C-alpha cells in the first residue's frame, strides 16, 4: 500500500526565513503520526502545504496519492482538517455547520441526513444539534469540528493541536474520539501537539521538528530511549530540540501568534 502522506525535500521559505527545510517523510496508511516540536519549528507550515493552503517553495509532496501542486482539488476531497483555530461557524447551529460541509463535499443527498445524524451521535452532540455553536463549550466545539472534518470520510485527517485550551476531561474525551475514528474507519491521522503525554497516548510514530528540519523519527518508546535510560517523551523533546527557548528563528512564537493561540484557548476554555 502506498504511503498516505509522502514528502520529498518539501521546503517553504518566508523571505529570509526557511520555515520548512527539505522535509522528507512518509506516513503510512492507517497510521497516527505526531509532528512535534517547539513553536516555529515548522509544524503548522508543513500541514498548510500538505492541505494545499500554502504553496511550497521547493520539493514535492503527495497526500492520498495526489500531488499537492498538480491535483489540489483531489487532495482536498481526500482530506479532513481541524485547524488550531476555531473552524466551526459560531453563528450557525451544529447541524447547519455539518450540512454546509455535506453540501460542499457533494455527499449523495440521500446519505446526508443519515451521516449527519451518525456524526452527531458518535460525537455525543445529538441533544445540542440545533443550538448555535457559539453557545457550546470548548470540548463540544472540538468534537463538532472533528465530526465536520470526518463527515466525508476522508482518507487522511490533519489535526493541528486538537486539544489546545481544553480541560483534562475534555481532552480525554477528544482522545477517545480520535482513537475511535481510527479504529472504526482506519483513517490516517497526522496531528501536531505541544503535549507529549498526548503524543505518547495517541501516536504510533512521532517526528521531532526543529528549525524547519526533521531531527528525529520513531515510536515514542524508541525516541524516549534515545534520550537516555528511564526518560520519557518530554525528555526526548528537550533532547532533540534543544531548550526550545532560543530567541532566533522562532517565527511562530511571535506576538501575533501568541495572541492568537491565547485567544483560541480563551474561547475554547
Amino acid at each position, binding site marked *: 500500500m502506498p504511503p498516505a502522506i509522502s514528502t520529498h525535500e518539501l521546503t517553504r521559505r518566508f523571505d529570509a526565513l526557511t520555515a520548512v527545510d527539505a522535509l522528507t517523510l512518509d506516513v503510512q496508511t492507517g497510521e497516527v503520526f505526531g509532528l512535534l516540536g517547539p513553536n516555529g519549528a515548522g509544524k503548522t507550515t508543513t500541514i498548510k502545504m500538505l492541505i494545499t493552503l*500554502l504553496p511550497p517553495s521547493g520539493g514535492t509532496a503527495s497526500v492520498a496519492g495526489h500531488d499537492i501542486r498538480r491535483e489540489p482539488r483531489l487532495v482536498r476531497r481526500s482530506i479532513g482538517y481541524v485547524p488550531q483555530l476555531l473552524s466551526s461557524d459560531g453563528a450557525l447551529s451544529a447541524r447547519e455547520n455539518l450540512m454546509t460541509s455535506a453540501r460542499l463535499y457533494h455527499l449523495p443527498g440521500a446519505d446526508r441526513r443519515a451521516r449527519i445524524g451518525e456524526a452527531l451521535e458518535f460525537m455525543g452532540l445529538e441533544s445540542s444539534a440545533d443550538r448555535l455553536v457559539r453557545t457550546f463549550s470548548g470540548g463540544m466545539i472540538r468534537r463538532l469540528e472533528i465530526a465536520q472534518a470526518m463527515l466525508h470520510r476522508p*482518507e487522511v485527517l490533519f489535526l493541528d493541536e486538537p486539544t489546545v485550551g481544553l480541560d483534562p476531561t475534555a481532552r480525554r474525551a477528544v482522545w477517545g474520539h480520535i482513537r475511535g475514528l481510527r479504529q*472504526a474507519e482506519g483513517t490516517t491521522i497526522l496531528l501536531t501537539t505541544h503535549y507529549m503525554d498526548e503524543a505518547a497516548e495517541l501516536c504510533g510514530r512521532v517526528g521531532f521538528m526543529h528549525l524547519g528540519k526533521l531531527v528525529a523519527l520513531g515510536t515514542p518508546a524508541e525516541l524516549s530511549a534515545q534520550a537516555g535510560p528511564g526518560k520519557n517523551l518530554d525528555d526526548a523533546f528537550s533532547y532533540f530540540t534543544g531548550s526550545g527557548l532560543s530567541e532566533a528563528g522562532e517565527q511562530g512564537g511571535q506576538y501575533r501568534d501568541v495572541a492568537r493561540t491565547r485567544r483560541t484557548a480563551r474561547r475554547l476554555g
Partner: protein
Amino acid sequence: MTSLERVERPAVWAEPPAPVRFILDSWTIAEGELRKLRHDPTELLTRAVQPLLWLLVFGQVMAQTRAIPTGSLGYIDFLAPGILAQSALFSAIFFGIAVIWERDLGVLHKYLVSPASRSALVTGKALAGGLRSLVQATMVYALALVMGVHLRLDPLSLVGVCLVVVIGSAAFATFSLVIACLVRTRERFMGIGQVLTMPLFFASSAVYPISIMPDWLQVIAHVNPLTYQVDALRGLMIQGSVESFPLALDFAVLMASTVILIVIAARLYPRLAQ
C-alpha cells in the same frame, strides 16, 4: 487494531459536473450567510436606520432650499433612489471585515480546504452581500411610501429594482472582499473602508445630478459603478424620472464590475489563509 466495523469509504463518490458544482457551492455559501442573518438580524436592522435619517433629515432640508436642480422631479423623489443605493453601498463596503474575522477565527481555512472552487466561495459571498441589501431596500420603500415619494409599484419595476440592488451590492461586497485580502487586518480595513465610501458616494449622482459637478468630478462619476446603479434605480423606482444612460448600459456596467471583481477576489482569497 481491533477493527469494530470497517466502514466502506466512498473514495470516489459521484460528483456533479463542474459548472453545476459552481452554482451549488455558491448557493451553499450564500445560504449559510443568510441563515446567520436570520439567527441574528440586529446588525442589518441597525444599518437600516441610517437611510431613514438621510431621507427624513437631509432630504427634507434640501427639498426646502430648492438648491439642487433636479428638473421636473421633486428633490425627495430624486433623492430616494440615491439613498437606497447609498445604504446598500455602506453596508456592502464593510463586508470584508466579516471575512477578515473569519480568517482570524479559522472558519476561512475550513472553506479553503473543501473541494469548492475559490470562485464559487467568492461568488457565494458576493451573492449573500447582494441579497442582504434587499432588507434595506424594503425599509427605504416603506419610508418612501409614507413620505409620498412617487414610486413605481408595478411588478416589473419592482423586480428590476431588486435585481439592480442585488447586483450592485454584490459588486461592492466583492470590492470590499478584495480590499480585505489586500490589507489583511481589521484595524487597517476600518480606516480604508471609511476613506473609500465617501468618494464613491459623493462622486456619484446619489444626492445631486452629475451635471452640477465640476468637470474633474464628472469624469470620476462616469467610471463609478454607483452612478450607474443610482441611474438604473432612479429610472425603475420613480414615476416620470428620466435616466441619463440606457438601462441596458447600467446593467452591463454593474454585471461587468461584479464579474471582474469576483475574478480578482478569487485569486486573492486564498492568500488570506497563508
